[in-house]
């Protein structure tokens, strides 16, 4: 059976902070790199997960 994880806004915020903390970057800094097509290495996975969080928060 596929695991279903119901999350709260607090969970999403916490995960967002963890991702950015791991990279040592502000969201805006990472977004600027994505916009400039200059993501490297782990920044790719981080940016895609942040976009998923954004979708869950705001649709």
């Amino acid at each position, binding site marked *: 059976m596929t*695991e*279903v994880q119901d999350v709260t*806004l607090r969970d999403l915020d916490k*995960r967002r902070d963890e991702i950015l903390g791991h990279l040592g970057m502000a969201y805006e800094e990472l977004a600027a790199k994505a916009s400039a097509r200059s993501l490297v290495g782990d920044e790719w996975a981080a940016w895609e997960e942040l976009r998923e969080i954004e*979708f*869950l928060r705001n649709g």
Partner: protein
Amino acid sequence: MGSLGRAPGDRVPSERITKTTRDLHQQVEEFGQETAELLCSTLPRLPDPPIRILRYEDRSIIGPADGKSLPLYAGGQHLADMKLSIACQLDSVGKYLAVDESTFNLLAILDRAPVLRIHYLRDPGTRPTAHVHMHGHRGALSHLLSQAGHDSPHDMSSLHIPVGGSRFRPCLEDFIQFLICECRFDAQPDWRPHVEAGRERWRRRQAAAVVRDVPEEAARVLRDLGYTVEAPDPLPATQLKALRNW
């Protein structure tokens, strides 16, 4: 299996009509389960379970936990990863399960960056609804893009290569077969029937969606084949958006 495409872009087929949030949750769980079964029956040595559903209110993400990727092996050696992400929610009228965005990525473990991405966006703006990004270098392409005044002439991945729009776009089964047959990644011994059965389901659903887009075209073809088809009154509206969008 419907996978990514269980939802062709704007709506899933009529049997996927949902009435309540509980129905929606159940459909997402079934969709997730089918996706997990497809992955496990085609690609070896995946984590168990390979994916999970992350859910907040009526929005869900189907994909590996914590944004991780799935390992791909060649000759038993872990050489690459596959990223899979499907974002679903109720559509604008609150009745249908819809895929808002999906991503299938092939990533090299050498630099953890994409080699190839297949991307679908329900609301793509000026980009093609379904498109492929190739991450590579080709001097001649950079040259011609530069001469043509492109913003990112040296970045091949800035191109959105259109692949069939919402109705005729590639499904997850296509991507998996590409990984196995073209890239030569390891596969489960009996992978092919799972891919083919899933692709058939996907294309039947897409065909049904196209019939709803242009019912008079479907009726004409059926009459040509000898069926008796009577038009309802009033005639159903033709929906050309999905067929006209690139």
